[in-house]
């Protein structure tokens, strides 16, 4: 499928296909030696489980982060869901439907993981709908052509995996375990996105133009997915330092962004696409790809709500939820009625 002349199918295409993922999966459980003390568990790189005592701040940080991740999966269904009815072939339609379904599944895992911290899904959905919790800002960009589904898989899922592979070693057990499975599926999504672009970039002129346009539009927002700079002078702000001390975060935003650029730039060459950054070039001395300045004004603007799709995404989600309220109420009423009937029969 990938044209063996250029692409070695055994070459890792994303972070979940690298040694870091395999390492993350090989967690060694030494709790019986370490005991149940939170600080001792963290110091020994052991997993915190739902029943363990934990600082309230740790709990709140995780609720915020895992919920935001869950919301991102659910909101993230929209940009691609938008294309299910229009996919250009039945094979693509089937793959895309399965992918959007996977995203729904990831959302459910992650809401469940958040629930282990003592909050329920209904409350989390309310927070998404009323804007008090966020989702990944990347989904505030529109999917304008079929090629955008390729760019989302290749770049957006690729960046997400880069962020998530270290989370497979997160100190909070339910989140780490969810991430192991999520990364595996995301890896498949990333490959299908790459393959969409691979086919387009070898297709008609219009298809090639479509692929290039999508890469142009998604490249910079994908780099923004790693969050604002948090090394050097920026190291003292934000959540990074505390999250690192708690074993929630393992690498800085900037480190992950660099790893992503290093992995992705050569893939763009294989696809025959030009990434929209004149400063992107291999730096022999650093052993990394150099890249240009990210427009952080755009990042903050979209994060604050002024992106192309912020209002639309939340309104869509809220509408589906509100339109479904009578169905959920009916299911609860039915369950209650039949539980009563069973009790009186017993």
């Amino acid at each position, binding site marked *: 499928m990938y044209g063996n002349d250029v692409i070695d199918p055994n070459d890792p295409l994303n972070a979940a296909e690298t040694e870091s993922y395999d390492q993350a999966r090989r967690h060694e459980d030494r709790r019986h030696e370490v005991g149940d003390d939170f600080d001792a568990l963290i110091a020994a790189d052991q997993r915190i489980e739902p029943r363990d005592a934990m600082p309230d701040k740790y709990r709140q940080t995780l609720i915020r982060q895992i919920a935001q991740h869950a919301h991102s999966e659910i909101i993230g269904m929209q940009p691609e869901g938008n294309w*299910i009815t229009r996919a250009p072939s039945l094979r*693509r339609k089937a793959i895309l439907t*399965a992918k959007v379904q996977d995203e729904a599944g990831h959302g459910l895992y992650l809401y469940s993981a958040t629930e282990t911290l003592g909050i329920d899904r209904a409350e989390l959905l309310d927070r998404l709908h009323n804007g008090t919790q966020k989702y990944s800002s990347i989904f505030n960009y529109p999917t304008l052509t*079929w090629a955008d589904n390729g760019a989302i898989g290749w770049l957006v899922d690729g960046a997400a995996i880069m962020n998530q592979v270290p989370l497979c070693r997160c100190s909070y057990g339910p989140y780490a375990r969810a991430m192991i499975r999520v990364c595996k599926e995301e890896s498949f999504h990333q490959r299908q996105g790459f393959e969409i672009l691979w*086919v387009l970039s070898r297709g008609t002129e219009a298809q090639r133009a479509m692929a290039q346009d999508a890469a142009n539009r998604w490249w910079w927002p994908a780099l923004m997915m790693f969050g604002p700079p948090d090394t050097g002078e920026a190291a003292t702000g934000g959540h990074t330092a505390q999250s690192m001390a708690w074993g929630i975060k393992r690498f800085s935003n900037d480190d992950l962004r660099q790893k992503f650029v290093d992995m992705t730039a050569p893939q763009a060459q294989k696809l025959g696409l030009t990434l929209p950054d004149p400063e992107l070039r291999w730096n022999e001395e650093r052993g990394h790809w150099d890249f240009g300045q990210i427009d952080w004004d755009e990042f903050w603007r979209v994060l604050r709500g002024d992106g192309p799709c912020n209002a639309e995404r939340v309104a869509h989600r809220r509408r*589906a939820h509100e339109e479904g309220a009578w169905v959920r109420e009916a299911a609860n009423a039915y369950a209650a*009625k039949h539980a009563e009937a069973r009790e009186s029969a017993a």
Partner: protein
Amino acid sequence: MSADRSEDTSRVPRSAWAERARPGAQGRGATEAVSEDTSELAAQGGSAAYLLGVADDAMVYAQRLGEWMTNAPQIEEDMALGNVSLDLLGQARGLYPRIGELDGTDRGEDDYAMFRDERQWRNVHLVEQERGDFAREMARMLWFAAYQNELYAAQLASSDPVLAGVAGKAVKEVRYHLDHARHWVLRLGDGTDESHRRMQAAIDWAAPYVDELFEDDPMSLEAVQAGLVAMAPSQLRARAQHVVEATVAEATLTMPEAPGWRSRGGRDGLHSRPMGFLLAELQHIARSHPGATW
């Protein structure tokens, strides 16, 4: 549950439906509208035309169900409706290439899905109707899955090995679709006042589209002759209808009176207004790039 509703359960009006359920009671109305397209289909060989009806039903309903993704009442249901859509899509994809062999055109799945005009589609009207509320979807799925459940069972020993293979897999999938729809009809019918009202309205809404599923069009009768399928559509009705009626009764709903009008003509390529829009959405990218691969 209100008293009047429990009364309703004991008086499901069956007579009109039972009349229609009797094998052979169907007129062959559709054959009155023999069109050029039908003749074309007939010329292509009855087997291919018959299979096209089976495949198009699945394809068009898969397309409609795909519209639910991100619009379902809860996330679990986004996944479930996506599953049903994928199953149906798989059934259509299993059949289209076989139809291309049988009709001698050697067309592939996308030739059928993306490059046929409205008059060449052989699906029934039920599946092409616009997405309504969730109750409507469950009413449609209940009838359609009950129908497909009988249909695929009758194709298990088909003289066509591809159809037998597709049916063997599909019959397990459809059992799940039926179960899913049945349980939602029960929950909604016997849930709240609002859900009861909506579910009843949905069952009433579906009624005019039901006859068409069980109509003995000439291609189906030919297919029975050829051993493609063990039973004519009208012979599938009694069992399918029994499942629907039992569900409706248990859900404290009532079967509607015989509808004043009924859909017809889908198997002859005569469709209702929503079909053209459905095809426009399904096909426009593929048609904008003729000859492209994806």
